[in-house]
């Protein structure tokens, strides 16, 4: 446990020292600036748009970090050969990989927490300057606690994307890893379409291939409850628990496959 903690904290420190959290400043500026503009233009829909924008930006910035840091988790260490001194210590490769993964999840956790605070702060300010009569027309309160559910599931999605990036980074270059991970993130949002591909006229081998791919790709649509939260619709607890469980299982599977590959690697 001590080894895992040491590797994870070192990974977190690397992210901090690489000034990864500067993206938060950009996020805050984008959020506040856009909110001010929307406040002038979209009366009645403004709070929904701010929530939608805040959640979408949280996801996009988070995926950017997950891909950018995830692909470097192992690939950069191997390319720069800093892995030689580290793995010559009495630390196993599975623990090293898990520590790296946990360290990046910690980084993403801090990132999304700060984004959540920024989003709630903007919404709180917006609520305080909005007349009560206008607030009464909102389908959900500005400071809706269900936003936390949406943000939590975004975090689980980021954990899955990080797992995919970790897997690629154990055997591929940083550039290829980034390309593959981004492609899988995009494709992961269309898994549902792949499973119903026969409805658009596909048949035979195409259907089987599409189904096979759909079961291998992460079903990232499971983590998307933004529309429900923004429009004040219910989000069943069972759906949230299932999504979290699926994310944890998929992340663990990515780590296990990454370990299997990493164990066989020679560090020349």
């Amino acid at each position, binding site marked *: 446990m*001590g080894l895992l903690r040491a590797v994870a904290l070192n990974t977190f420190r690397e992210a901090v020292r690489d000034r990864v959290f500067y993206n938060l400043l950009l996020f805050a500026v984008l959020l506040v600036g856009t909110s001010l503009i929307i406040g002038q233009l979209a009366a009645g829909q403004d709070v929904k748009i701010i929530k939608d924008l805040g959640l979408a930006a949280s996801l996009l910035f988070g995926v950017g970090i997950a891909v950018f840091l995830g692909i470097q988790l192992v690939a950069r260490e191997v390319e*720069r050969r*800093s892995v030689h001194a580290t793995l010559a*210590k*009495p630390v196993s490769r599975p623990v090293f990989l898990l520590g790296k993964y946990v360290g990046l999840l910690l980084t993403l956790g801090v990132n999304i927490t700060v984004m959540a605070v920024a989003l709630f702060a903007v919404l709180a300010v917006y609520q305080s300057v909005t007349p009560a009569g206008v607030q009464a027309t909102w389908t959900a309160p500005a400071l809706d606690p269900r936003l936390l559910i949406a943000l939590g599931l975004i975090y689980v999605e980021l954990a899955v994307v990080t797992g995919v990036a970790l897997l690629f980074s154990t055997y591929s270059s940083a550039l290829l890893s980034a390309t593959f991970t981004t492609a899988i993130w995009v494709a992961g949002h269309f898994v549902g379409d792949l499973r119903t591909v026969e409805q658009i006229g596909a048949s035979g081998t195409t259907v089987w291939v599409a189904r096979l791919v759909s079961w291998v790709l992460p079903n990232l649509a499971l983590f998307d409850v933004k529309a429900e939260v923004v429009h004040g619709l219910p989000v069943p607890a069972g759906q949230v628990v299932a999504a979290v469980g699926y994310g944890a299982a998929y992340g663990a599977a990515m780590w296990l496959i990454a370990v299997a590959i990493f164990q066989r690697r020679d560090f020349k």
Partner: protein
Amino acid sequence: MTEPVIVVDRLTKDYPVGFWRPRPYRALDALSLEVAPGEVFGCLGPNGAGKSTTLKLLLGLVTPTSGTAHIFGRPVSSVASRERVGFLPENPVFYDYLTGEELLTYFGQLCGLRASEARRRGTALLDRVGLGAERRLAIRRYSKGMVQRLGVAQALVQDPDLVILDEPMSGLDPIGRRDVRALILSLRDEGKTVLFSSHILSDAETLCSRVAILAAGRLQALGSMTDLVQFSVRAWELLLDGVDATLEHRLRETGATMTTLSPGRVQVHLPGTQPPEPLLQWANGAGARVLALQPVRETLEDVFLKHVEGKRRDVPGTTGGA
């Protein structure tokens, strides 16, 4: 009888070379050797000899194709075999966003030390390698020599019983090399076992109790310095000034070979079976001055060249030693 620290038995490593139809490239071929406790053991050889591959096999960084290796009785495939081992990689690269102190604390923790103990050890080691004043400087600001010293410090962070150093003198200035030599000798005096690879034969000659000479992935010679190097005098070399034709003729009659460096100044090479004293008397009698007289002995370099000449090769896809 004391158990060997390192036991290597027919250790072989093939790397695949080529993309479409990879062929095996034999980097190390059936290496067998043992290193005893307290030894300073040198692994010598030209580029592509298999030195670094051997060290990486011992540390589990590379998996053997066949053969076995044990450290302190444990197979090198087990993490536990590295618990009492410190390692300095060739041309080391560390996390440059950390300070020297933070790096040693982190590595100490990876070796199972508590953070406070690792920090204490790190501070002492940075002082020992002459980086005490730079302990809070980011590693990205370190010079190459400072990184090498830091590498030596991190190899000692858990006070290991076996220290493996891959080209420890690389990138060091003469003072740095002297310091590392002194450090290796002090480790030996503390009873630790040191295994290092080097291109610098003079360092191996002064430091090692035993050496292995590798070339083209194969063991060419293995033994103590006294086994490998013939220390008896093979010849004498004299440097004379004011040599006239008579003296030169007389010297040639003894079987000595001569090189004229400048008018009147000659270098005389006398085969070791003959004593040099008569030549000194003749030189004195002829009014010549003896500027230098020195014995010629076999050096480790001679032994090295004898074993590796004609066996050099470069490892595909690498620029350094392998």
